[in-house]
């Protein structure tokens, strides 16, 4: 049964239930409700009762003590980054994947996107969203394909500008590895809070990063990564139970262009992610799942787009290798609509090529 049919079935069955009519009883009771009161605004008068004055006095005393007592030495306890490695790796991988995509977008802004439409029977809302969804595929592939611990290694620093070095690896669905190195300085603020400033290096690319967190809350991290041209990604990361939850904001030329909520979760062999577009031109909610067909990994997406109208459906993404080049073959199956295929160039890591997409209609 298709999703649309199922939803229609639920709606139909729900309407078949006879619900008793209580409207008369409610009206009868409502007649006894008090009429809405008109409250006249009274003139504000400042009258401090004695106990308020006492409270105020105690508060002022505390403030004075805090202000004028000399700083007492506090045992310097370094906030530790232990157990936060994975959090940092997660956030960095996510932000780097996306910031490289913004870059691609800028470089190809003037490129013509080739569309070879047929005559679809009705407008397909998903078509307008696909370009942005493909930008997240790099990140999805790496999350789905990598080892859970990202092979994180903390190394001795050789760069004199930084004190710490962390390396981790990702693997995509074709098992191709990408290595990330983060060189950073850590500054402790107070007993538990810290900020890290540094660079993340991927191949020939390097991006400044800035992160802040607390050793009291090792499941939360704020991270910013930027390009020289004003492109910036900010991430609020939080691990809620076993769900990695990201609030991602993407800035282009210092302007917020997109805000998404992204979650990732692993349950045994089952890996799943959700992507919800909150702000920006792209809309919809998408659930990504890793699947294997004939020993080949693919990504299945279910989508719901809600605006004035709504649309739902499924997308299957396969990777095609041809003459050494790889591309995505994206099969889109809108519920109740005609399926179609979009071919999208797969980004070559860590550099990204043109983002050309070719649409085809598919007759099934």
């Amino acid at each position: 049964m298709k999703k649309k049919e199922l939803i229609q079935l639920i709606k139909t069955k729900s309407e078949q239930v006879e619900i008793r009519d209580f409207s008369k009883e409610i009206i009868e009771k409502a007649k006894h409700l008090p009429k809405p009161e008109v409250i006249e605004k009274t003139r504000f008068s400042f009258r401090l009762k004695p106990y308020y004055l006492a409270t105020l006095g105690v508060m002022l005393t505390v403030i004075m003590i805090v202000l004028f007592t000399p700083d007492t030495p506090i045992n310097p306890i370094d906030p530790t980054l232990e157990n936060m490695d994975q959090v940092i790796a997660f956030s960095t991988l996510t932000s780097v994947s996306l910031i490289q995509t913004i870059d691609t977008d800028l470089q190809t802004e003037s490129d013509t996107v080739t569309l070879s439409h047929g005559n679809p029977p009705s407008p397909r809302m998903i078509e307008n969203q696909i370009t942005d969804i493909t930008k997240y595929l790099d990140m999805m592939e790496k999350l789905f394909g990598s080892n859970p611990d990202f092979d994180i290694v903390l190394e001795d620093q050789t760069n004199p500008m930084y004190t710490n070095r962390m390396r981790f690896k990702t693997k995509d669905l074709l098992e191709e590895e990408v290595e990330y190195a983060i060189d950073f300085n850590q500054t402790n603020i107070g007993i538990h809070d810290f900020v890290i400033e540094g660079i993340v290096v991927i191949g020939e690319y390097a991006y400044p990063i800035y992160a802040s967190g607390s050793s009291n809350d090792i499941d939360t991290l704020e991270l910013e990564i930027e390009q020289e041209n004003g492109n910036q990604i900010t991430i609020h990361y939080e691990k809620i139970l076993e769900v990695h939850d990201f609030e991602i904001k993407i800035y282009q030329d210092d302007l917020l262009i997109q805000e998404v909520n992204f979650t990732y979760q692993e349950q045994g062999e089952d890996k799943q992610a959700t992507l919800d577009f909150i702000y920006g031109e792209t809309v919809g909610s998408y659930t990504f799942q890793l699947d294997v067909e004939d020993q080949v990994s693919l990504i299945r997406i279910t989508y719901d787009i809600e605006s004035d109208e709504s649309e739902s459906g499924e997308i299957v993404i396969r990777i095609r290798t041809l003459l050494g080049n790889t591309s995505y073959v994206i099969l889109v199956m809108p519920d109740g609509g005609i399926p179609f295929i979009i071919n999208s160039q797969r980004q070559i890591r860590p550099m990204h090529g043109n983002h050309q997409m070719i649409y085809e209609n598919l007759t099934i």
Partner: protein
Amino acid sequence: MDQMIVLIEQLKRRDYTSFDTFYQLTKNQVFYAIVSVVKDKNLAEDLMQDTYMKFLENISNFKEGSNVFAYLSRIGRNLAIDTYHQRKKIVQGDELFETIATPEVEEDRDDIFKMLDLLKDDEREIVTLHVINDLKFREISEMIDKPLGTVLWIFNKAIKKLKERAGDYL
């Protein structure tokens, strides 16, 4: 929706002449928001009256332009949860509503309840609020205080489960 605005304006003035129309337009949403929590049709119907009374009592707080279906669903759900907690104190059982629900013969139950029974509590509530009550995922996320991603996740899991089994109810 224009009709709804007019109806609410009347209700704000304590004019109940069109309440019946308002009730007919909203009763399904109220009923399902409640029944998805309490899992008992009779109890849900009883709580519907309380939901509407609470809505009318506090109608001055209803902001123009808000989604009245979401607003009513939220009131109904909160009342259902309160009832759940009150009865829990009395029954002290783990499977509370299985204990207190009026036993109904399985064959007599409406198909929708049999279908929703295939789901876990959180799945049933999200499917009900999205599919039957037409609430957006973001509204549901705020209502049940769960991250948006989690709501989507649960919804898709529930749909997958129903796809496999719902054919029995065609």
